[in-house]
C-alpha cells in the first residue's frame, strides 16, 4: 500500500508526488459528479475542474477499514475496476491506514498497526466497517485478536470522526442475519451510537458511492444528506425500477417469463420472473459496477434480488413478484374512442323470453276474443231459450 503518513499532505500535493496525471484526476472527479448529482455539496459544482479544486485542497483522509463477519466482497468491489488507474487512484486519494486484506502485515504487527493508526489520527479518521457484528453469546463468533467484534468496533468508533458501514452486512446484518441468524448478526448502527453513521448497503455496493461519501466528508466537513435509514440520498433515494435500462420493456408490457425463453433472450423486463427492482433502493441501474455496463444481475438477465433491502433479499422468494407502488403510464396509447359494450347471453335470453311471452300471450288473447264471441252467441241463445222456458213454466204455474 502506497501511503504517506504525513498528516498535512493535501490530496493535491500527494497526487502530484505520486505522479498521477491531472487528466486521470479530472476523470475521477467527473465520475464523482456522475455518481452523486444531487445530495452532496462537493459535487454541486459546475465542472469537474471545480470538484478537482475542492478535492485537491483537502487533506488526504485517513481511513481505517475493519472487517467482521464478511466475505470481503465490499473490498473486492473497491478493487474490481476495469481501469487499474481508477483503483489505485482511489487508493492515492485516501490514505488506507489499516486494511486486513490489502496490508502486508499480519499477526502482532497487524494489531500494532491498528493501534498506531487509531492513536495517530484519533478523532480524524474515517472508520469503514465491512461485515456484520455478532452479538449472541457475548459476541464470541467473531473475534479480532481474541477480542469480540462488538468491543473492537465500539473502541474504533469511539475515536473515529465518522463511521461508514459498507455493504449490507455492516448496514443491517446482511447474509449472516438471514434466518435463523445463529450468531445474532447485526449492523453497525445497532451496536455503535453517538457517532455519525453512514450505511452503504448493497451486496456488494458501488465503490464510487463510498468514495463520494468519504470525499464529501473530508472536503466539506460533513456527511452527505442521509435518509431515515442513514443511507446517502444521492445513491439510495430511488428504486432500481425508476431508472432500470429495461424499463422501456416494462412500459411496453414485454416480459420474460422464464430463463432462456424468447423474451429472456431478447432482454425483456424481468418483472414477472420476480425482479425486486420496484422495491429496492439502490444505484445499480445508473452507476455500473467495474465501469462496465450490464455488469449487474438485471444486465445479465437475472432478476434483481434486492440485496440492499433488509426486508427483501433474504426474506422474499426469488420468484416472488412485488407490487408496483408507483404505477406509471405505459407506452401504449388509448384510441380516440374506446369502450365497446358486449351483450351478455343470459340477459339476452331473458329479454327474448319476455318478448316472446308478451307477443304470444297477446296473440292468444286476441284469438280468444273471437272464440269467446261465438261461444257467447250460443250462450246467449241458449240462455234466452232457458229463460223463455222458465217464463212459460212460471206462467203455466200461475194459471194453474
Amino acid at each position: 500500500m502506497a501511503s504517506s503518513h504525513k498528516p498535512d499532505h493535501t490530496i493535491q500535493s500527494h497526487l502530484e508526488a505520486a505522479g498521477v496525471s491531472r487528466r486521470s484526476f479530472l476523470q475521477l472527479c467527473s465520475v464523482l459528479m456522475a455518481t452523486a448529482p444531487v445530495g452532496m455539496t462537493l459535487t454541486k459544482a459546475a465542472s469537474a475542474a471545480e470538484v478537482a479544486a475542492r478535492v485537491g485542497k483537502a487533506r488526504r483522509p485517513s481511513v481505517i477499514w475493519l472487517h467482521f463477519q464478511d466475505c470481503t466482497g465490499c473490498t473486492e468491489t473497491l478493487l474490481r475496476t476495469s481501469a487499474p488507474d481508477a483503483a489505485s487512484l482511489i487508493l492515492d486519494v485516501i490514505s488506507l491506514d489499516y486494511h486486513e486484506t490489502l496490508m502486508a502485515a499480519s499477526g502482532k504487527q497487524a494489531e500494532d498497526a491498528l493501534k498506531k493508526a487509531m492513536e495517530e489520527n484519533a478523532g480524524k479518521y474515517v472508520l469503514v466497517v465491512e461485515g456484520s457484528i455478532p452479538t449472541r453469546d457475548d459476541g464470541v463468533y467473531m473475534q479480532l485478536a481474541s477480542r469480540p467484534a462488538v468491543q473492537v468496533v465500539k473502541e474504533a468508533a469511539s475515536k473515529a470522526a465518522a463511521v461508514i458501514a459498507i455493504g449490507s452486512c455492516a448496514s443491517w446484518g446482511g447474509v449472516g442475519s438471514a434466518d435463523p441468524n445463529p450468531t445474532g448478526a447485526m449492523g453497525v448502527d445497532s451496536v455503535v451510537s453517538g457517532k455519525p453513521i453512514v450505511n452503504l448497503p448493497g451486496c456488494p455496493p458501488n465503490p464510487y458511492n463510498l468514495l463520494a461519501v468519504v470525499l464529501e466528508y473530508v472536503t466539506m466537513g460533513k456527511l452527505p444528506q442521509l435518509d431515515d435509514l442513514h443511507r446517502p440520498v444521492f445513491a439510495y433515494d430511488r428504486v432500481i425500477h425508476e431508472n432500470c435500462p429495461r424499463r422501456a420493456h416494462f412500459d411496453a408490457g414485454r416480459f420474460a417469463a422464464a430463463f432462456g425463453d424468447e423474451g429472456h433472450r431478447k432482454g425483456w423486463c424481468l418483472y414477472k420472473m420476480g425482479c425486486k427492482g420496484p422495491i429496492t433502493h439502490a444505484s445499480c441501474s445508473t452507476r455500473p459496477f467495474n465501469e462496465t455496463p450490464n455488469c449487474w444481475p438485471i444486465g445479465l438477465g437475472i432478476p434483481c434480488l434486492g440485496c440492499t433491502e433488509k426486508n427483501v433479499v433474504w426474506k422474499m422468494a426469488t420468484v416472488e413478484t412485488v407490487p408496483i407502488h408507483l404505477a406509471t403510464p405505459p407506452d401504449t396509447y388509448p384510441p380516440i374512442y374506446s369502450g365497446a359494450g358486449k351483450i351478455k347471453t343470459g340477459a339476452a335470453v331473458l329479454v327474448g323470453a319476455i318478448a316472446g311471452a308478451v307477443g304470444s300471450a297477446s296473440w292468444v288473447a286476441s284469438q280468444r276474443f273471437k272464440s269467446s264471441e261465438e261461444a257467447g252467441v250460443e250462450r246467449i241463445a241458449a240462455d234466452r231459450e232457458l229463460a223463455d222456458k222458465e217464463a212459460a213454466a212460471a206462467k203455466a204455474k200461475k194459471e194453474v
Partner: protein
Amino acid sequence: MITKIAKTGASGAVAVTIGTHAVREEGEVIRIPSTAVGLLYDATICIGCKACVAACAEANDTPPDTRLDGLHQAPDDLNDVTRNIIKLYKPTDGTPSSYVKRQCMHCLDPACAAGCPFQALAKDPETGIVSWTADKCIGCRYCTITCPYHVPRFQWIGYNPRVTKCELCSHRLEQGLKPGCTTVCPTGAVIYGPRTVLLSEAKRRIKENPGRYYENKVYGETDNGGTQSLYLARVPFEDLGLPEIGPESVPAKTLRWQRRFYQYFALPALLYAGLVQVIRKSVKGHVQEAHDHEKETGLRAQL
C-alpha cells in the same frame, strides 16, 4: 263557451309573444366570467409523454388507475379516477397522427350544468370553472349524457358514488399554484392562464406559423358557445374527438323553446286557468248526469 275560448286564446297569444320577446332579449348572449381562466393545449407540441396524466392523479390525490392490467397506470379513457388523459389519433392511411389531451372544456354555457337538477355542477361566476358539489348531486348521470365532450364520469362501484371531472385544480389555484398538468408538461404543450391571454397567444401562434395549424382555427373560441379549454391541432378536430358543434351552445340551441315555454311559468299558469274553466263546466254536467242516473237505478253514484 266559444267566446271564453277565444278570450283565453287571445290572452294566451299575447302572453306568448311578450314572453318570447323577453327571453330573446336576455337569454341568448353568453356571459364570459370576469376572470375566466383556462388551458391552451397545442397538439403540435405535445409529445405524448403522459406526465400530465400522472401529475393530475397526484395533484387530485386519486390513486392511479391500474385496473386494466394491474401494473401500469393505463386508463383507456376518462373515468371515475381519471380526470385527464392523453389519447392518440393514428390514421391508417398515412396522414399525420396527433396526440390529444382530453379533460373538461369548462364551457362558457355548460350543458352539464344546464341539465343538472339541483345545480350540483355549477359554473363559478368569476373563474368560470365548472365544479361538482357532492352535497347536491343525486347521481342521476344526466351530465354524462348531456356533455357534448363526454367528460363527467360516474363512479359505478360503491354505495357513495361521485362524479369525476377536471376542475382545473381549483384547490391548487387557491394556493397560488398552477394546475397539476401544466406544471409538469416538459414541452409546454399545455399552459394555464386567463382565457383572454390564452386566446391571444393562440392567435399569435397561428399568425406566426401559417400552415401549421388546422384551418388556422382555435377550437373553443366560439365552438359550443365558447370554452375555456382551447385547442390547437394540425389534424381535423373531429378526428381528435372534439365534435363540430357550431357557435351556439348546446343548451341554448336545444332548450330554446323549452325555456320560452316555462319563462316565469306564465304559459303553464295560463293553461291551468283555462283548463279549470273548461273542467268546471264538465264536472257540473257530469255530476248532474250521475245524480239522474242514481235516481233511475237506485244505486249510489260513482263519481
